[in-house]
């Protein structure tokens, strides 16, 4: 038996710690706990205000039991229609623009300058949160669904292009290589070697994005960019909690229906 082996025999074995230096390990753990305690202590809570708010909260929850779909039926219908139009239009436009940008942002198929430009567009789109873009666009185009539509299209590009590009980058190289070896042109190569590999993911992501766009369209109304959010905001402002409850119920129902449909479609395209 070698000396190196006899050192180990009969002794327990433990997985080596992630941070090797024991003092550093303890310092980080204790520091994290102290910071957490201080952080929680620094949140000021006005208990009196919370107590008063409970009543309003209770009224709100109670009104959920008696949602009022009828009093503001026209407003609700218009708001929902506007949201759906915004969702569909922005998803279609956003997806169509995302595909070429996604191709350009995949390092394994795009030349470096194209890659840089496309990644730049994605970074810009992702760094600006929807609400901020919406405020900016409302300032430019005025109140209404046009600002909302442009906001959602812009956000779709950042989301879908990035995930599509990452999917292309992780595709099976040999399948694409085999198509290239046949003497195919670049568009043929994309159509035969790349598209079949990324199609299920592209469809799944697109449906997911439709779902997100609908939910976002409900928020954008709060900053004046059209859709059901505007109706919802007005209902809250007038303390019409029963109408607000009705709107929320409709939003939840539509999101759940979309979720159900997307599940079916994603299972089909595997």
């Amino acid at each position, binding site marked *: 038996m070698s000396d190196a082996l006899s050192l180990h025999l009969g002794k327990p074995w433990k997985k080596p710690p992630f941070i090797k230096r024991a003092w550093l390990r303890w310092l980080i753990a204790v520091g994290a706990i102290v910071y957490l305690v201080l952080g929680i202590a620094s949140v000021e809570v006005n208990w009196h205000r919370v107590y008063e708010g409970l009543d309003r909260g209770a009224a709100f929850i109670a009104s959920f039991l008696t949602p009022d779909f009828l009093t503001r039926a026209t407003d609700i219908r218009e708001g929902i229609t506007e949201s759906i139009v915004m969702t569909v239009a922005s998803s279609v436009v956003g997806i169509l623009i995302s595909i070429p940008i996604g191709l350009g942002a995949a390092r394994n198929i795009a030349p470096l300058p194209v890659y840089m430009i496309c990644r730049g567009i994605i970074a810009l789109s992702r760094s600006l949160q929807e609400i901020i873009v919406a405020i900016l666009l409302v300032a430019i185009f005025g109140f209404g669904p046009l600002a909302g539509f442009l906001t959602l299209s812009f956000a779709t590009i950042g989301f879908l292009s990035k995930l599509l590009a990452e999917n292309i980058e992780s595709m099976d190289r040999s399948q694409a*290589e085999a*198509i290239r*070896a*046949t*003497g*195919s*042109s670049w*568009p043929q190569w994309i159509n035969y070697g790349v598209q079949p*590999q990324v199609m*299920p993911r592209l469809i799944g992501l697109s449906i997911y994005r439709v779902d997100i766009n609908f939910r976002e369209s409900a928020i954008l109304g709060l900053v004046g960019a059209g859709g059901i959010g505007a109706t919802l905001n007005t209902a809250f402002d007038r303390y019409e909690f029963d109408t607000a409850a009705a709107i929320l119920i409709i939003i939840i129902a539509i999101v759940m229906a979309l979720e159900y449909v997307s599940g079916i479609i994603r299972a089909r395209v595997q």
Partner: protein
Amino acid sequence: MLSLEKLTKTYRTGDQALKAVDLEIPEGQVVALIGPSGAGKSTLIRCINRLVEPTSGKVWLGDIEISSLGATALRQQRRRMGMIFQEYALVERLTVMENVLSGRLGYVGFWKSFLRRYPQSDIDEAFRLLDRVGLLEMADKRADELSGGQRQRVGICRALIQNPALLLVDEPTASLDPKTSRQIMRLICELCAERGLAAIINIHDVALAQMFVQRVIGLQFGEIKFDGPPDGLVPEVLTQIYGEEDWQATIRKVEEEEEAVE
């Protein structure tokens, strides 16, 4: 028909995969390329159709110099070089027929290929090839529904429908069982003989190579260490290519297997 002149490939990492390889392959000859992993076998065949760009040296296919062609001319020449891959490299989510027809991509325009409207002659040829390899009834199955041996036969059809003058074959049997491996090698060699195709076959299985080819080339660290008939692979030669081992077993295996076949 194919000739390589001082073909050299140095990867960006500094690894020299090929060191001034000279090679001449006449019309209709089937050549096995053997050598340890990392010897440059895959790089060699990929430098011929320029899926990998050679660093220097020349590749001649007939009287055309492949190594200096522009993008369009290169695509036209790639049609003359069918390639068969390790692990088949079929596009898994396309049908068998689409995979076979993709071999015609170099001949048809984008919209025809996009709409899958291939000329009738291509469709007929695809069916003829599928029938030849015994997969006619699989035409409309998706490629990922097939077994390994079936997939490789589709890969062979895809290469042959290009109507190539040369086949580049990269480890065709690497993930197949011994019997299927032999069937695939036999099929490739029969088809080459039928059509008078030259072929370069990268292969790990020395015994299998010896059974089917007319000429063996041994590659080691990017240099040709052996070039001769299959029965020239004596233990000394294998030691030179792969390093020290008991080669008697490998060579005897061939004879025993041949007896077993008969």
